[in-house]
């Protein structure tokens, strides 16, 4: 491949007006701009979803508190869950895949740039529909003004009998529309990875992050389909007199649960897999070592995706399946801990014998490792069906999945922000603010989510707008609430850092971390065409080969 990153001089263009620039962003089909827009959009939703969580925690600070009404509380947890999963976590991952996948495989853009823009705007439109319920959801009966059925919207609460206004229809439509967006993006990423790789970039030489984007997108194709089908069936129930889920007319509430969780569980891995990808790249660079056991890491990712599609009913151990059904889902669920364990050990082995540089991205990666370990172990506890009969739908399970999503996934996302921001913007994020963000957020995270396990053990169910005194839950809820404050301040510091560093950060240069994958070979930010001459690679770490011609990777792989 070329040794220098050749950048063509931009044609001299007159300074653009604000409107012209906005128009350029809205109409863009550039994968990098779309990636940035995904992430900015997700960050806005993150702040909204975070505020919703803050009000929830305020309400639960003491028994019989009256910060919000029961109706509003139920709307808040529904909107919080839906926003965070569908409009924060998913878009962040898709944004990252959009931005990074073409750069990491040495491509000029995605396979279908216009589809790419279309699916991004579908996602945004989905979020707009969800929040439009605040205005348009006031049905004939004034039943509710925002969706209030929880993020998994169990039947029959969604039936006309129980949810008379239109608010929950906005929930359905939001997921339907953004679901089409996700499927389109997934197709696009898969096509890109299969057809746009540069010369020499065999599947076996792809960076792990790209592998994980690929596996994630395949999983999206399989799992969003049942969700979309279920939403359509729900619409048929509500408006065309169908009885799929309408229990009062003989429909099945349990059927909805199966439909939802056969989407819902793999969804966790849709979010987690790209996080594993970020982590693999960050740990390699900041330990100064190649990933340990690359083939095993790829295999483990594929196995996780595969098994994740056969574990869904572990969300339903209390639903009253037969003992054989429960047994099946115990073993499949526990089986997933084996490939997951392989990943943790391989990351550990990558650090082992390396030279660990505790820069901010690596700090997040380390936090991920510890928290992911805990989340995995509480997951094993929940996989024991009998223990799950206690813990499911309690605060323990709430703590568990927030450990996965905040403690693991978001920590990886934050790490990725600090790692790739210099590439995207051309300037470094402030390390000092980054450390403040890290410590505040990690302390807040542990205050909130470590202590959240305890009320679960003590019998506190989730989704209750208030609770009785004398159950031993009060003090834990106070600590949980205090943690929110730390996380909130930490997040504000991140946002400030992201904005400030874009103007005042230290210039990054092409390769600030002395990294090894292709995106670091082009300029920061990369030109519209990514690479002036398409690179040619001979190993998994093309930039290592360049920097160490005496000891290139391709000799060993």
């Amino acid at each position: 491949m070329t040794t220098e990153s050749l950048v063509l001089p931009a044609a001299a263009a007159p300074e653009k007006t604000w409107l012209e620039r906005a128009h350029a962003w809205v109409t863009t089909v550039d994968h990098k701009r779309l990636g940035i827009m995904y992430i900015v959009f997700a960050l806005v939703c993150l702040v909204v979803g975070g505020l919703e969580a803050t009000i929830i925690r305020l309400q639960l600070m003491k028994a019989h508190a009256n910060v919000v009404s029961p109706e509003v509380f139920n709307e808040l947890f529904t909107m919080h869950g839906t926003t965070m999963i569908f409009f924060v976590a998913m878009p962040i991952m898709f944004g990252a895949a959009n931005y990074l996948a073409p750069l990491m495989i040495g491509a000029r853009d995605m396979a279908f740039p216009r589809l790419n823009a279309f699916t991004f705007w579908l996602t945004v439109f989905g979020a707009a529909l969800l929040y439009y319920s605040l205005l348009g959801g006031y049905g004939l009966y004034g039943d509710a003004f925002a969706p209030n059925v929880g993020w998994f919207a169990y039947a029959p609460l969604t039936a006309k009998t129980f949810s008379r206004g239109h608010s929950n229809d906005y929930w359905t439509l939001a997921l339907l529309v953004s679901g089409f967006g996700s499927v389109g993006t997934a197709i696009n990423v898969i096509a890109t990875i299969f057809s746009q790789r540069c010369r020499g970039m065999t599947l076996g030489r792809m960076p792990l992050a790209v592998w994980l984007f690929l596996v994630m997108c395949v999983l999206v194709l399989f799992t969003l389909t049942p969700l979309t089908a279920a939403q359509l069936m729900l619409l048929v129930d509500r408006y065309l007199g169908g009885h799929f889920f309408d229990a009062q007319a003989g429909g099945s509430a349990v059927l909805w649960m199966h439909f939802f969780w056969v989407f819902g569980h793999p969804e966790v891995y849709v979010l987690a897999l790209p996080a594993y990808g970020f982590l693999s790249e960050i740990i390699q660079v900041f330990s100064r070592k190649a990933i340990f056991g690359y083939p095993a890491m790829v295999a483990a990712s594929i196995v996780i995706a595969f098994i994740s599609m056969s574990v869904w009913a572990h969300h339903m151990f209390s639903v009253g399946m037969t003992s054989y059904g429960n047994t099946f889902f115990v073993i499949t669920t526990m089986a997933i801990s084996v490939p997951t364990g392989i990943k943790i050990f391989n990351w550990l082995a990558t650090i082992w014998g390396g030279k660990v540089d505790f820069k901010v991205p690596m700090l997040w990666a380390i936090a991920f490792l510890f928290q992911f370990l805990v989340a995995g172990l509480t997951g094993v506890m929940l996989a024991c069906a009998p223990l799950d009969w206690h813990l499911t739908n309690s605060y323990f399970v709430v703590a568990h999945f927030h450990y996965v999503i905040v403690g693991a996934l978001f920590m990886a996302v934050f790490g990725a922000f600090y790692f790739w921001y210099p590439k995207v913007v051309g300037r470094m994020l402030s390390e000092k603010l980054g450390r403040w963000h890290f410590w505040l957020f990690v302390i807040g995270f542990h205050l909130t989510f470590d202590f959240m396990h305890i009320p679960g053990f003590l019998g506190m169910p989730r989704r209750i707008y208030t609770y009785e005194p004398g159950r031993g839950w009060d003090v834990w809820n106070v600590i949980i609430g205090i943690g929110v404050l730390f996380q909130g301040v930490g997040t504000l510091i991140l946002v400030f850092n992201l904005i400030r560093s874009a103007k005042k950060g230290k210039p990054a240069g092409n390769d600030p971390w002395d990294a090894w994958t292709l995106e670091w070979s082009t300029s920061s930010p990369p030109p519209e065409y990514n690479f002036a001459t398409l690179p040619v690679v001979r190993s998994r770490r093309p930039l290592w080969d360049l920097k160490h011609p005496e000891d290139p990777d391709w000799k060993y792989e």
Partner: protein
Amino acid sequence: MSPTTIFSPESSAARMIFDLSLLVYVVCTVIFVVVSALLIYALVKYRKRRGDETREPAQIFGSKQIELAWTIIPIIIVLVLFLSSVRVIAATQDAKMPPGTIEVNVVGHQYWWEYRYPGLGVVTANELHIPTSDPAKPTPTLLHLYSADANHSYWVPRLAGKTDLIPNHPNQLWFDPEKPGLYLGQCAQYCGVQHAKMLLRVYVHSPDDFRRWIEEQKEPARQVDTVARGRELFERTNCMNCHTIAGTPATGRFGPDLTHLMSRETLAAGIVPNNRDNLRAWIKDPNSLKPGSLMPAIAFDDAELDAVTDYLMTLR
């Protein structure tokens, strides 16, 4: 101690889970300690040191033996946990119920619990009464779980894990407490506005006390002449459309059976003590105690309200 902790099991179903959970906690703790210790060791030992800026560490791409080891060891751990879980699943779900089993039909309603004892001819609400079970001669309680509307979940942590009440999907749950007492819990599946105020109270009696309670509950409602005015109001308004009072024309099924209302310690699914003030406030406007309750406020004036309250107060 929390009255709803899972660490203080009082029936064999809950105890089996508790014993299993101890194994699981120990295994998970050991894994956590070992892996974190390795991680901390690696991070400290292999940290970047001063004067070490240019050297790149040895690049190691993997090791078949080591990777095989950390695949096989977790498989063994998983198998152990799986087999111990399966034993408990079979022992609880497929347990044979002995002849002395007390069967109770539980119907979850938006925001209260209906209890019917089909073999004993008793109907009550919100407070379940059951006998203790002697391991030598077990008299466990088997609950048949139904729902009249949304999904609910029955969770009394000291007696058993939770099981959902789902429309068109009958479920079962059993427990056999040995000690008399009051066991608390609450609905654990989001079921609507007042999901939080669907509390569970299970009163466990000695067999004699339980028999006495059954005998009292089988009686029709008391007739007290001094409250005829309240009774007339009850039977003339909407009250009787939803509530049953055995021995009177009131046979509604939508709301709780009130035949022995005053034998219950709490009102509105366990949320307030059952006394005259709360009862009156509840009849006046259920939303004042439980916003979103499906019971309508009936426009009684103060005198009528007193009369109806007085009538209900006689239903012991």
